[in-house]
């Protein structure tokens, strides 16, 4: 069997602060195959974005990779910084949440794409410009020739995100990492961007890692999903089975507290409390303090073990309905 496109092995990332070392990522392992779509979901501070930055080789001081390895097609990147820099922006591309801060406001968007193409693909000026117009067409920007000469502020939020996606695709990457690509956008525009990413994925056979706090956006785009909490993956598996029957109390709570258009309960089921601090985090299950079914046993760290439904969960009581009592209380 050939190596997966991307493999992350026991990755640990810390940020040194005056208050102590913030353990942002605490032993994350995952693999992404060619053409696969993986959602990395969780709430603020769970480590999902730091994991993505680590893959891009963008962890700068005060952050550092403490342990673990990141491999691309079987080759270690952490031991080959030069090779890593070559991959970045060409084979692995990234789209960020806020396109306005990722674009140069004083340079036409066309010139910004042309620059990328000339650097990575060694194209001449006119060839690069032709390719840029083609990319604009591909991401659904009308009148590409005219719009290439415009500045970023002349684009709406949704159109700017399309520009970012066009730039990310310029070098025909094998993996696209999208970090909250729709969070800053209106819902109707958000749906358009999800549709576009789906089309491009099917057309180009891209692998996508989608980082999002919005479980609905992940549902629209990903085949697999990994749920993160306090720096660790607590559950992962095919999205259909995981969302239909989450095994970990945190995944269950997260899905339950997501507002829907149809739920009949008068009240939402809330997860009490807040995530733990990551300076000196608990050594056992990090969710214990908020978990309705946790007990003494959970002071040890539960391993990420198979659930039987094709997924894996890090919980000694995986599969039990943790929120049954809370739900009953909400119904009355």
């Amino acid at each position, binding site marked *: 069997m050939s190596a997966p496109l991307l493999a992350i092995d026991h990755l640990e990332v810390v940020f040194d602060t005056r208050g102590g070392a913030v353990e942002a990522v605490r032993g994350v392992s995952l693999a992404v195959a060619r053409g696969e779509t993986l959602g990395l979901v969780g709430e603020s501070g769970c480590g999902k974005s730091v994991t993505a930055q680590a893959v891009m080789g963008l962890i700068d001081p005060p952050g550092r990779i403490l342990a673990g390895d990141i491999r691309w097609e079987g080759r270690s990147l952490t031991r080959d910084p030069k090779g890593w820099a070559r991959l970045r922006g060409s084979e692995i591309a990234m789209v960020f949440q806020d396109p306005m801060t990722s674009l140069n406001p004083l340079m036409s968007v066309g010139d910004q794409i042309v620059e990328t193409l000339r650097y990575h693909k060694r194209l001449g000026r006119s060839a690069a410009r032709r390719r840029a117009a083609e990319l604009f067409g591909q991401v659904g920007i009308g009148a590409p020739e005219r719009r290439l000469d415009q500045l970023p502020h002349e684009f709406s939020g949704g159109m700017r995100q399309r520009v970012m996606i066009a730039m990310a695709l310029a070098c025909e990457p094998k993996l696209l990492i999208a970090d909250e690509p729709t969070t800053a956008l*209106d819902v109707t525009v958000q749906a358009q961007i999800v549709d576009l990413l789906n089309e491009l994925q099917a057309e180009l056979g891209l692998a996508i890692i989608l980082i999002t706090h919005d479980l609905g956006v992940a549902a629209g785009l990903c085949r697999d999903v990994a749920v993160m909490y306090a720096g660790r993956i607590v559950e992962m598996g095919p999205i259909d089975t995981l969302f239909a029957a989450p095994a970990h109390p945190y995944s269950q709570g997260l899905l339950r507290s997501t507002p*829907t*258009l149809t739920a009949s309960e008068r009240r939402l089921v809330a997860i009490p409390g807040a995530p733990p601090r990551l300076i000196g985090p608990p050594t056992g299950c990090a969710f214990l303090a908020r978990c309705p079914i946790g007990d003494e046993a959970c002071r040890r760290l539960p391993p990420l073990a198979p659930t039987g439904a094709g997924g894996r969960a890090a919980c000694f009581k995986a599969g039990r309905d943790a929120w049954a009592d809370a739900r009953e209380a909400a119904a009355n």
Partner: protein
Amino acid sequence: MPEPTPPAPTLAVEDLAVEYRVGQSGFLASRQTFRAVEGVTFAIARGETLGLVGESGSGKSTVGRAILRRAPLAAGRVLLEGEDISHARGRQLQRLRARMQLVLQDPYASLNPRMSVADIVAEPLIVHRRVASKAQARARVAELLHLVGLPEDAHTRYPHAFSGGQRQRIGIARALALEPPLIVADEPVSALDVSVRAQVINLMQDLQEKLGLSYLCIAHDLAIVRHISHRIAILYAGRVVEIAGRDAIYDAPKHPYTEALLAAVPVTDPAVQRGRARAVPRGELPDLTRPPPGCRYAPRCPRASDLCHARQPPLEAKAPGHLAACWHPG
């Protein structure tokens, strides 16, 4: 001052318009004005929540600001418990502000990091001279913190010691200090994590039941306001396009824009999410300095006819208690 009559709603907004000037300033520069909102009419009864939903540029926050008299009214009236406050100034305006409070989106930006929680919550009590002594202020603050479910020792601590959800509780405690009949909540949970949103929404519902509060709850999508709203108004390009009871909006929307907003809400069912034929329109908001003569949604609307491009549809009843501004309602 007229005595407020008992059946008067907590808030009534009549034909509200807010105008902004854009373009260069200067002696010879051409000035343009545009109406960020226009013809907005609704009422909120005591103990009721109206969800005001729209995307960026719809004017939803402008409506909130105009009600709080923080944006100039170009036309229309705002009545608080039957009292016309559209032109209140000075002392009267200050007194009014005690009766309608604001809860903001970002609990990180809206609390002064250098003030203790006790000082933050006590500030409105002191500004409006509701307490006679420090001891009285302390007692009232303790009562408020208890009401919003914060720990007893919270009052001596500073905002940075609290999570986003707890900060929003502090903001709510501050808003409740003066016992206002109306709270305008501008995206009160958008900045919070999903698991914490439910805590804050449940708290707002509990407080409403306990205190008979009325809420104007401003939001950018339909999922968040569903649990908290009794009625919902949909705003597009500065105009109300539909207003109805909560279930009618979700189960039987009349306006194509409401349909599009519903279709765009991401749901956590992968099969539904993938298989859904998207009723999501292409295109963008019209330029409000030159609004189209007809329906403002017509350029994006799949059902638009010649009539829609020529004449603005009136907001009128399509079913009992269900108003929509559309020539071809669903």
